[in-house]
């Protein structure tokens, strides 16, 4: 089926205020809940759940009316953050299909004219768009038409999926009620007085006579109702990042309840990332403290991931090391978006460790023991023995490791280093250690090898004399004496 590039899909979310709230707090879906505006808490009801509607509560009732109809009605305020995050989620959903997106509260329009290779049937495309919206907990209706206005009217009034071929617009629009048109109260009253009920009735009016009755807007309304509105999409820029927030009713100090809430936020963030086929390359959590102040905790992710369990583990370990010190009244999670890394899988890999798994393990261990305590061991370039550092582990690749390996060697003595070195009291005889007292040993020295003089710094005074000693128990140690202080230290044990 050939299609023109002007095809527009509209995803319409009915009961937008209610869905925007339930997206953030899905546990309220089964409750007798009514939503009101944050700025007008005693104003009108913006939406009600099925349980509340069964009790007679409707959008448009005043809060007092709603409470009189349902005694145990739960009233929640819809905040600006709820609206904004739901709108951004809607944008993310559409961005999986098209870069041309016009996004409003409860409605997103996108150009889908060039998707025929991926979706030969437009019905499948509409279903995929609706299904994608459901992954971010927004349940809506989709219509595809040649004009944005037509698609919007059909999505509002028709069933879950509507696809209109070019030229059939009037046929589909004619039975729709007039309430789908964006009319002012005055215009609606006037048209009702004319006895008009459907768009078909409105279409039948002569367009040239409408400005006299409805003003300038009359013509554009008539075009819209007739499926002849050619207004192009007004593109909405994508959100700068993927963020989700939560306002607590009561300030919270304990870490576990906060982690429970953060899990929900991460779930929502990851669901949005999945819709865009992107991954989380790290995130920050903002704690809004009571009465004021914001604390930001950065969580590093070794490799872009969408695994909520991994992200939660990193967050838990980070917060356990630095828990919030005062009561928290709101939370926000902001992610750094990255493209996922792709790995070639093999049928015979077995229980192989994939690079992403290894890097995630390193990140989790770093959150546990610190960045400088996990990685690849390396020798510090120095004359002194026993100096070590930790380098970041090189990310493993899928290519075969062609690094030439060292030859097999005879078993060598290894030293168990004492970090930091233990101070020791040493009695010397003929310039050599003869007796030692330290934290774990106390007694004569049976054998002594050395000294091996090494320079610790650049000056001549930074010299150390190293000795290998053996005590009567058969244990061998490494010992050194600092020239400038004359203090003895036990450096390690041959183990």
């Amino acid at each position, binding site marked *: 089926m050939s299609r023109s590039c002007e095809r527009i899909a509209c995803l319409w979310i009915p009961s937008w205020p209610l869905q925007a709230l339930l997206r953030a707090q899905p546990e309220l879906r089964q409750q007798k809940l009514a939503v009101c505006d944050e700025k007008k808490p005693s104003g009108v009801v913006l939406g009600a759940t099925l349980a509340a509607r069964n009790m007679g509560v409707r959008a448009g009732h005043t809060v007092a009316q709603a409470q009189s109809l349902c005694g145990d009605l739960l009233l929640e305020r819809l905040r600006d953050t709820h609206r904004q995050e739901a709108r951004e989620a809607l944008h993310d959903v559409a961005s999986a299909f098209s870069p041309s997106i016009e996004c409003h509260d409860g409605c997103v329009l996108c150009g889908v004219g060039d998707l025929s290779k991926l979706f030969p049937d437009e019905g499948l495309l509409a279903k995929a768009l609706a299904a994608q919206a459901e992954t971010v907990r927004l349940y809506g209706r989709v219509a595809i038409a040649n004009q944005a206005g037509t698609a919007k009217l059909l999505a509002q009034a028709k069933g879950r999926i509507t696809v209109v071929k070019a030229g059939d617009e009037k046929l589909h629009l004619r039975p729709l009620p007039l309430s789908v048109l964006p009319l002012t109260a005055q215009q609606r009253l006037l048209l009702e007085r004319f006895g008009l009920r459907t768009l078909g009735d409105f279409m039948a009016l002569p367009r040239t006579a409408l400005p006299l009755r409805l003003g300038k807007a009359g013509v554009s309304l008539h075009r819209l109702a007739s499926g002849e509105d050619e207004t192009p999409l007004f593109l909405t820029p994508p959100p700068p990042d993927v963020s989700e927030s939560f306002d607590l009713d009561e300030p919270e100090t304990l870490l576990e309840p906060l982690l429970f809430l953060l899990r929900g936020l991460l779930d929502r963030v990851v669901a949005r990332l999945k819709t865009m086929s992107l991954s989380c390359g790290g995130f920050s959590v903002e704690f809004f403290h009571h009465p004021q102040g914001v604390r930001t905790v950065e969580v590093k992710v070794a490799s872009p991931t969408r695994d909520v369990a991994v992200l939660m583990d990193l967050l838990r370990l980070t917060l356990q090391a630095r828990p919030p010190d005062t009561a928290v009244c709101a939370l926000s999670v902001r992610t750094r978006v990255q493209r996922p890394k792709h790995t070639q899988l093999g049928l015979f890999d077995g229980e*192989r460790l*994939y690079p992403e798994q290894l890097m995630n393990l*390193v990140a989790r261990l770093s959150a546990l023991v610190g960045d400088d*305590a996990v990685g690849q061991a390396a020798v510090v370039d120095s004359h002194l023995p026993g100096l070590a550092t930790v380098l970041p*582990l090189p990310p493993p690749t899928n290519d075969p490791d062609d690094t030439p390996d060292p*030859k097999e060697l005879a078993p060598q003595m290894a030293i168990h*280093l004492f970090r930091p070195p233990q101070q020791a009291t040493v009695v010397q005889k003929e310039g050599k250690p003869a007796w030692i007292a330290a934290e774990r040993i106390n007694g004569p020295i049976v054998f002594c090898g050395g000294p091996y003089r090494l320079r610790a710094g650049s000056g001549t005074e930074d010299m150390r004399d190293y000795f290998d000693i053996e005590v009567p128990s058969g244990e061998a140690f490494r010992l050194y004496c600092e020239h400038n202080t004359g203090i003895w230290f036990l450096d390690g044990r041959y183990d």
Partner: protein
Amino acid sequence: MFNLALKLSPNTVQAEPNFVAASDKIALRQAAFAELRRACGARPSPHKPPLSTGLPVLDEALSGGLPRGQIVEAIGESGRLSFVLWLLGQATRRKERTVLIDGASAFDPESALRQGVVLHRMLWVRATQAAQALRATDLTLSTGGLSLVVLYLVCGADLSQWGRAALWSKLVLRLQRAGSAMLLLADKPLAQSFAAATLSIRNGGTRWQTVPGGRQRLCAQDLRIEVLRNRLGLPGGVQPFTLDK
């Protein structure tokens, strides 16, 4: 083949495979293969061979080397770190990925290089407390895919919480799922009956050499590695192990 496996598994196919991230692909692949194996009535894949220690007597006593999915415990007063570095050298030269959880922060990379350890194939975790070492082991085993996990817990660490049976049974379960070999080194037995074998490393004496000028030089150490307890074969094997300096 991956697509074929996905098609056989309608429950796991949620999205176009080209759009799936690597971590999701791994999970999808594992689920698809598990379903494929169930559908075919196939038996579980055979276990990987044990990790050879490179010491003939020990390999024979342990039926081939350090067993995968089980703990081998080594106790003693001397020679434990040399034994660990020897095993890490053997494993990393075979291009195996290993991890050393260093509960004493005692690891010396210079000694490791002398032993032929390929450091970029060994993850070093410096845990300053025993609890951290425990959590790090748990995280490592739950990730899986590493050939050898070495837990080095010697010298004065507070090990009061390591005696609990529940802890070891959990670690053994994780270890079986991960398919890794695990070597535990401590001053005294910790895993006890949860370990497949217990080795004792004893000092057989150090050797000193007199160099020109009359000075002495430490040149070698003799060790005896004895199999004290063994569920994999007969106990009692003794492996002499001489270390040069």
